[in-house]
């Protein structure tokens, strides 16, 4: 391929000759690619799998605790959270390999040092199996034990951020943290861990939150202490009894649940168990409708909860549309440019150049324009990714980053799409009749 150097030189010369057209094409491709890549970086960030090695083994059970009369959309979808009664039944039966009911808390923490004001931290009340379930990494200590769950021990797992704030980052296992005016013993400090989306509780976090969970308390202990739920509480009717106790006895749903099931057999067994549970409830008269359960794995669950905002999808779509317009534009301009050189093509063809040689020459030129557009697009994408902070919620915007794969993808998309745009103009160039061109000049 010693001709490649020659073609590159020809392309350079041609690009210089009609500077205006070249600049126009490079900018069009730059803008098109940058718009697509910027919106794609956001889409990639929000549609990513937060725990790819395990997501297919994590399941979210749903049990219809309300019945068909409360259906709004007519899709027969059970509510997306569990009532306390159902969540506790599932925990008691303990049919999955690992499982945890959980609810979101927003608790005050009183700093140990003098003079500091209390502050709020977000967190979850969970069972001990939560930590291996979501594979939360520990920096110091470990999760509390199943025994602590049963005894409702006053223990806590805190984030490394809270550990730094309260204890200056040292190993604080064994020290006490004051939550809502009560003392809890720290048993574990997590390492940096902030999965996005917050897959274990997208119902209440909306998927993307700027603040990672800082505090985890044993579920039963939190219930006993009346630590309130900071997430959504949905009811079909007001609880009969007043207060927190009334909420626990009601059919209101406010508890999230996650279970690990390792193979298809375990999944179908668990599905059967849920079916059977709902059936038992029907027989007992608690539900007066046929069992209506769901057991979705994590990717399907995130999909059903519409974790990817529809605005993100529409933006990506519109940006891809923009790229297509830019390509049509480039195609038209390349056509004009190539056909203007019909004379040159005629001469080359008359001197023995094959059609293939013409293809190689003009596609090289298209490729170079694409590459230049890609480099420009890379710069624009950089600005775009910086700029998404202005137009998107913080929790999502900070996830959009420019990394190596995106960089290569930008360049590759620019070159590839320009080559596609250049195909028809090149085809036309290769059909130029040498004799006709030579005569007319």
């Amino acid at each position, binding site marked *: 391929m010693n001709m490649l150097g020659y073609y590159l030189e020809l392309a350079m010369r041609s690009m210089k000759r009609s500077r205006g057209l070249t600049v126009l094409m490079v900018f069009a491709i730059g803008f098109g690619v940058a718009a697509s890549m910027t919106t794609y970086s956001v889409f990639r960030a929000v549609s990513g799998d937060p725990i790819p090695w395990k997501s297919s083994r994590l399941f979210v059970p749903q049990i219809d605790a309300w019945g068909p009369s409360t259906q709004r959309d007519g899709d027969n979808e059970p509510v997306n959270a569990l009532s306390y009664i159902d969540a506790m039944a599932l925990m008691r039966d303990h049919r999955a390999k690992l499982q945890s009911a959980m609810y979101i808390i927003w608790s005050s923490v009183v700093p140990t040092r003098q003079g500091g*004001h209390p502050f709020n931290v977000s967190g979850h009340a969970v069972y001990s199996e939560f930590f291996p379930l979501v594979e939360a990494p520990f920096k110091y200590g470990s999760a509390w034990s199943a025994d602590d769950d049963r005894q409702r021990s006053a223990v806590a797992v805190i984030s490394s951020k809270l550990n730094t704030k309260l204890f200056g980052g040292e190993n604080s296992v064994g020290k006490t943290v004051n939550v809502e*005016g009560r003392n809890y013993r720290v048993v574990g400090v997590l390492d940096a861990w902030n999965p996005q989306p917050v897959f274990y509780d997208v119902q209440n976090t909306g998927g993307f939150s700027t603040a990672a969970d800082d505090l985890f308390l044993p579920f039963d202990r939190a219930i006993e202490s009346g630590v309130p739920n900071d997430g959504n509480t949905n009811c079909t009717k*007001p609880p009969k009894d007043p207060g927190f106790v009334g909420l626990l006895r009601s059919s209101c749903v406010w508890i999230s649940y996650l279970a690990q099931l390792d193979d298809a057999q375990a999944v179908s067994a668990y599905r059967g168990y849920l079916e059977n549970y709902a059936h038992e409830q029907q027989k007992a008269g608690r539900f007066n409708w046929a069992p209506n359960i769901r057991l979705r794995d994590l990717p399907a669950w995130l999909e059903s909860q519409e974790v990817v905002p529809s605005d993100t999808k529409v933006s990506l779509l519109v940006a891809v549309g923009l790229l297509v317009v830019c390509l*049509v*534009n480039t195609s*038209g301009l390349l056509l004009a440019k190539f056909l203007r050189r019909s004379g040159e093509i005629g001469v080359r063809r008359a001197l023995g150049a094959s059609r293939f040689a013409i293809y190689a020459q003009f596609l090289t030129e298209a490729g170079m324009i694409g590459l230049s557009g890609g480099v420009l697009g890379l710069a624009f994408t950089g600005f775009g990714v910086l700029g998404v902070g202005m*137009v998107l919620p913080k929790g999502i915007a900070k996830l959009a980053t420019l990394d190596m794969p995106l960089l290569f993808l930008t360049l590759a998309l620019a070159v590839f799409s320009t080559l596609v745009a250049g195909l028809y103009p090149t085809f036309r160039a290769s059909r130029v009749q040498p004799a006709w061109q030579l005569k007319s000049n």
Partner: protein
Amino acid sequence: MTLHPIFAALRKHKAGVVLIALQIALTLAIVCNALFIIGQRIQNVNRPTGLIEDNLFLISQQWVGAPDADKPAGAEQLDAMMKEDLAALRNMPDVSSVTPTNSLPLYTSSRAGSAGINPGNGTYDGLSAGTARVSYFFTDDQALPTLGFKVIAGRFFNPGEVQHYSGREERTASVIVITRGLAEKLFPDKGAVGQVLYLDGASTPSAVIGVVDRLQGAVWAKTFAWNAVVVPARLNSNYSRYAVRTKPGRRDAAMKAVPSVLFGVNPMRVLDDEESVKSFEQIRAHAYQSDLGMAILMGVVCIILIGVTAAGIVGLTSFWVGQRRKQIGVRRALGARKIDILHYFQLENLAIACGGAAIGILLALMLNFWLMRNFGMDRIPVPWVLVGVAAVLLLGQFAVFVPARRASNVPPVAATRTV
């Protein structure tokens, strides 16, 4: 001038014509839908909440080690703490009025339920006839001067009507004030004042004593944004929220002074400057951030699209002008005026743009239909599309003007030159 020669010439460079027409069609389809999205979002953001939004802020604080609101004594204690806070806030020099409230329009946290004109059966029902889903505002008589909504019928609460109870307790209010939106939905052909409503499926009625013009619900209460019920009660729980109206221009100063005042009353509370004390301006900005963001993004896309398409038309027309110098020269030599040449290219562009726009209308409607089906967008009104068509036709004319003028300046002598 007849169109015949234009079409005859267009047939000579089909590919270029098709590409420009296609580009115009796609531009029209995308710009129409993008502008429609922008229009909807801006309309959304511009809806008045019903409040006087200047000089208004919200405090959201939480007590540490608070008494248990579920016990009667605890609720009494919490109410006393709340009253202390209210008194301290009302004493601040920059403050003109303060009201306790569970939520504000456009806020993230709120309570929703249902209201019906007939006694309920104990379950929430906001779907069947004669019922509606509603947002609740639990507040006191000071809400009127503090929030600044307008009472359009009846009256607002007097201090004697304000109760207090645990935030977890369901208690039927004896008197309520509702929004005009709810009044028109549930009492379409009579005045709402003097009527009764049954809240959250209750069997005991609540009397409507007044109607306020507008009071928008929380940010998530999108489907029933204008249905609100105001209940005269302070809800007691381990947290409390206070809406504060300041004297004109003193909002920021008052917001700054709040933490020291409240910590002075009771230091055992969570009150973080940034999170706990928010101006209504911040609440509004947060609520509409994604709408504004989407509008900006669509705007940027539209500008790029229009720029690229205009530049494309300039580029391709310039090429055609260059290609046809000789023919233009011949026409000029045969007596065509400059203006005839200019018109020729303008008409040519109009013909192509019309073709493109025709396909574009179809694509725009298809895209709109697809967005409706998949993303719950509204049907685009026909005038929007027509405005879009006018816009791309104008765009084409603007873009073609420079190369067309260059064409009209080709001297007749070009006819005699070979290249």
